[in-house]
């Protein structure tokens, strides 16, 4: 069921990149991970053509139900909310539950198993196969090699990873000039994806500045 190719979903890959591949321990502050994963969930909807992000707002392009259940829940929220919210507010709202939701989704896909809680530690999710858990990072690094043709999902993954703070992990152990290559490829991305990456970056930076991270 599980494989080195992953589930093929952007947010799943980002989750695995943001947690240790052996222990499942988060590698970033919880709020930063939440914001990054929220951006990834919205990016999945952009890639599937359901929403567009422009100038700080989210616009619904296609209301049909997506294939994935979690994406369907997120789209349902976006559609049914009576008040218009900015992209930042959606990121903040989704960030509250994104980590838990994606852990459940990965558990159903067989990539994570639930380790029971101990008296001194809450229950958490541990990768079922460390190699499969490391694979998204390796794939993201490989996508930044100079000769490789760019793929929107891979570039968006890289951009969101850097936005929430995984820059050192992704870029320093990757191919040389990876940062420049990522910036170059991000410029070629769909405007909605670029907007989401920028909004996620701004949200994480603001959280750091406002002492909430």
């Amino acid at each position: 069921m599980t494989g080195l190719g992953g589930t093929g979903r952007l947010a799943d890959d980002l989750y695995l990149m943001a947690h240790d591949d052996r222990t499942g321990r988060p590698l970033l502050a919880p709020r930063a991970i939440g914001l990054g994963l929220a951006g990834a969930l919205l990016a999945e909807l952009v890639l599937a053509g359901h929403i567009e992000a422009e100038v700080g707002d989210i616009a619904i392009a296609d209301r049909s139900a997506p294939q994935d259940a979690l994406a369907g829940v997120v789209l349902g929220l976006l559609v049914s909310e009576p008040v218009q919210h900015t992209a930042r507010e959606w990121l903040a709202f989704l960030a509250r539950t994104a980590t838990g939701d994606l852990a459940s989704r990965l558990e159903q896909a067989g990539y994570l198993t639930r380790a029971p809680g101990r008296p001194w530690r809450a229950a958490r999710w541990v990768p079922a196969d460390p190699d499969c858990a490391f694979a998204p990072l390796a794939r993201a690094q490989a996508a930044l090699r100079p000769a490789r043709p760019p793929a929107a999902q891979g570039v968006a993954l890289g951009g969101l990873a850097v936005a929430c703070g995984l820059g050192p992990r992704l870029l320093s152990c990757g191919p040389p000039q990876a940062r420049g290559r990522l910036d170059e490829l991000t410029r070629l991305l769909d405007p909605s994806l670029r907007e989401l990456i920028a909004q996620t970056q701004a949200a994480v930076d603001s959280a750091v500045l406002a002492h909430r991270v």
Partner: protein
Amino acid sequence: MSRTHAAPSRKPGSVSRELARDRLGVPAVLFFVLAGVAPLTVTAGVIPTAYATTGLTGIPAAFVAIALILALFAVGDVAMTCHILNSGAFYAFVSQGLGRAAGVAAALVALLAYSCLQVGLYGAFGPTAAAEATAHIGVHAPWWAWALGAWAVITVLGLLRVDITGRVLGVLLTAEVTVIVAETIIGLVQPAGGQLSQATLSPSDLTSAGFGTFGVLAVIAVLGFVGLEQTPVLAEEARHRRRTIPVATYLALGVIAIVYAAAAWAMSAHSGDAHVVAAAAQQGPGLLFGLGGATWLAQTAQVLFMTSLFAAALAFHNCVWRYMFALGRENVLPPALGRTGGNNIPKAASLTQSATGLVVIVAFAASGQDPMARLFFWLGTTGGFGIMVLLAVTAVAVVAFSVATRAGRTPGAA
């Protein structure tokens, strides 16, 4: 793979409610600001040292005067937060009103000012801890040993991105203010010569030694209020932007002004107007602690003084590296400062401020100068002066922003 995911709080229309729950209310903003203001640090550290070093007695009047000026300033400052939601506070407001170049200059001045304030606090912590240790646990170590100890702890806490927040902070601050109020009341009830003199509260004391007197007093008073300008930093995280920030700002301003003016007045009334300068030179922070006599109150106050200094040093350390982070992001400072390492911690920025602190402490230790009157007071007042300049520039920027907005022009076009 397509099993429905259970989502308890996913009712439509609940987004705003859920977001509000996460956000900060007036108490949280208030305590955040008061931590930077550090009431006991000012009343026991700055005020006696100011009396002794400047020889001026108009300090209580100065607090009242500056509070009124700041209240005016706060109107515009708080109004800006309704227009501009940006955690960069000064930088954002000045950029929007006067253009990016001015904004960058303002941010650099802010960085320098907060850095001075942060390092200066070691100069107060060192001798206080040394005196306490000598008196109570018989450990004899020079002031700089204790200062370096505090520096080391703050360096580690800064790298772990630890902030003293929440309940711990609330408890400490409430205790500090309570102690100050208690000492003040006791001091006022027992004035020198049995007569409660209001001379130090009168405006004439503001220019007692010529017009320049007010300048000196103003810097000292502004130093007391430093930290108040941080309320807009939390604007994005505040529950009701238009209400939480203004209420917290004015509440903090009012509380601080009354507490400081009353404490300074109590000190001068208790010692006698003619003797307070000499008494301050002799007793230092003891001028506040001794108001209530040598009791458990004085003892508690001394311990809280140390925690106040430490908490303020940590708060300013975190403030400085956040400014460096913001400026690194904007490429005003080297981009390395704007990068976060593991766990979203801007290590480079934190370590830079730590390095600055180390150099300054070592330099002052080597020069043998009095840490309280020099390291603490000089760097402290320099930082206070820097913040005063910033407040003035921000006030101009706020006016420029309002004028430009009203005229329909794009603000910030320099």
